[in-house]
């Protein structure tokens, strides 16, 4: 039996899978709305709008809970890359993803209760959760309540910048999601990291 540590409390796991489900739902319905076309067999427009609205509100609520829980439990500290040597650690980690991983080298930084994420993870999660997500949510909420959108925007309808920001941040989140799911296969075995997210135990 390999060594294992209890890494992820229940609330983080519950949050993670709810978040994942909502973002996948929002992606599928969002794509159906944006690329609406009688010839494309996507989710029917009014159904997509209804689901997207509900999932969007749910995600905004979940995000508020996530922020509060992170403050209360102190989990936010995990997202802060700790100096000194952040840059070096990022480079080492990047090199491992580009070369070491192919040669079967072990992960350069060992996961521990104190440092759940490597430096590269901490930075990218921080950017996604605290920079991209707020923009995503705020533009989504403005879309829901267009009376709060600017009235005009350089001769265009004021909803245009909101829509474009929403679209672009959505794209960033989808790209992140693809990379994120893939990197989930880089644990000890291809599925061990997914198991950790389910039962909370990390295998070294």
């Amino acid at each position, binding site marked *: 039996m390999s060594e294992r540590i209890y890494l992820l409390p229940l609330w983080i796991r519950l949050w993670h899978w709810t978040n994942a489900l909502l973002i996948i739902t929002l992606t599928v319905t969002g794509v159906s709305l944006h690329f609406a076309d009688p010839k494309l067999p996507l989710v029917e427009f009014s159904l997509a709008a209804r689901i997207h609205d509900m999932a969007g509100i749910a995600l905004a609520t979940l995000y508020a809970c996530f922020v509060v829980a992170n403050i209360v439990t102190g989990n936010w500290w995990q997202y802060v890359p700790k100096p000194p040597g952040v840059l070096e650690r990022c480079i080492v980690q990047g090199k491992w993803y580009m070369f070491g991983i192919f040669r079967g080298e072990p992960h350069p930084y060992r996961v521990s209760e104190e440092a759940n994420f490597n430096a590269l993870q901490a930075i990218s999660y921080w950017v996604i959760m605290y920079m991209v997500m707020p923009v995503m949510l705020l533009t989504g909420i403005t879309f829901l309540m*267009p009376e709060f959108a600017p009235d005009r925007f350089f001769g265009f309808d004021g909803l*245009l910048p909101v829509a474009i920001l929403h679209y672009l941040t959505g794209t960033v989140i989808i790209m992140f999601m*693809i990379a994120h799911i*893939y990197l989930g296969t880089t644990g000890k075995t291809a599925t061990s990291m997914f198991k950790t997210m389910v039962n909370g135990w990390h295998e070294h």
Partner: protein
Amino acid sequence: MFQSWRKTILTLLILGLTRALAAHGGTEAAAIDPAVAEKNRKANEACFACHTEAGLKNPPRTDMDMKKLAETLRDPKVFAGSNHGTMDCRQCHGQGYNDYPHSEGSKNEISPCSECHATRVARLEPQYDKSVHARLEGVKAKFTCATCHDPHVNLGATLLKDPLKIAVQDNQACLECHDSDRVFAKYAPDDEKKPGIKKARPDIDTIHDWLPNTKLHWKAVRCVECHTPEVKANRPLSHEILDKEKAEKNCLSCHSANSSLRTRLYRHLVKEEVAQFGFTNSVILSSSYVIGATRNPTLDTIVIALVGLTLAGVLLHGAIRIIFAIRRKGRKQ
């Protein structure tokens, strides 16, 4: 008798004038000469002395039925900005209103629209006759062109230009009745189950609760967008209000690249459409951002490419990992 005779002469004069002004001498009303317009404006001041808010406050005489007058007020500024703003009131109302008290029966002598708009009425009337309002027993008798078109207020779409203003004006015509129990009861037929009692007015927002952001849609599109049959591009809107079963419920009729808004609310602007930053349906974008319709193919290509590259990168990385893992295994054995 004398009144109507005078009116006929006046009408013939106007028809002669408008025909002379019309380029091809059709039976269609045409714009009025500025000098004539100025003369008409002066003449109308006489009517506005009583038929305005100011007139009601400061009546030129004291022997009038003020309650009735209060129901007949017109706004000179609004009238001046309307389709018929350069006309003399008497061109439609006849000479019976020259003096007060107005002549008995003048009310029944208002010129019908066809008197000046013969060509258009000939085109529109068959469509109008097929409309729900012209077919429903109890409704049709009270419904006329003026029920929707206030000839003192409305301004044609081509002159109003701004689609959001057109939407306000045209929806006002329907909502004034469909959103008011008082007005609706005046026109509504009797309830089928309870004779003698007027049919209850269904609430407009409830009927359309399948349409999200209902109130926002009322500001950005017109009732007639969904309640009239499709017409060819460049043709004016049909005047046939369809049965409710035939109304448009498909969101994609507007929310797609090939949006029907181009042939409807934005019809008069499409000819002058200027592509802006490569957006499809740029003509709509200056008034409304319409999901699915106002998109940018260049941006979409970039976004699809970025997501595609991420996916390809990940798959390539995975493939290399698998190949290396197999080679390592082979070496170990």
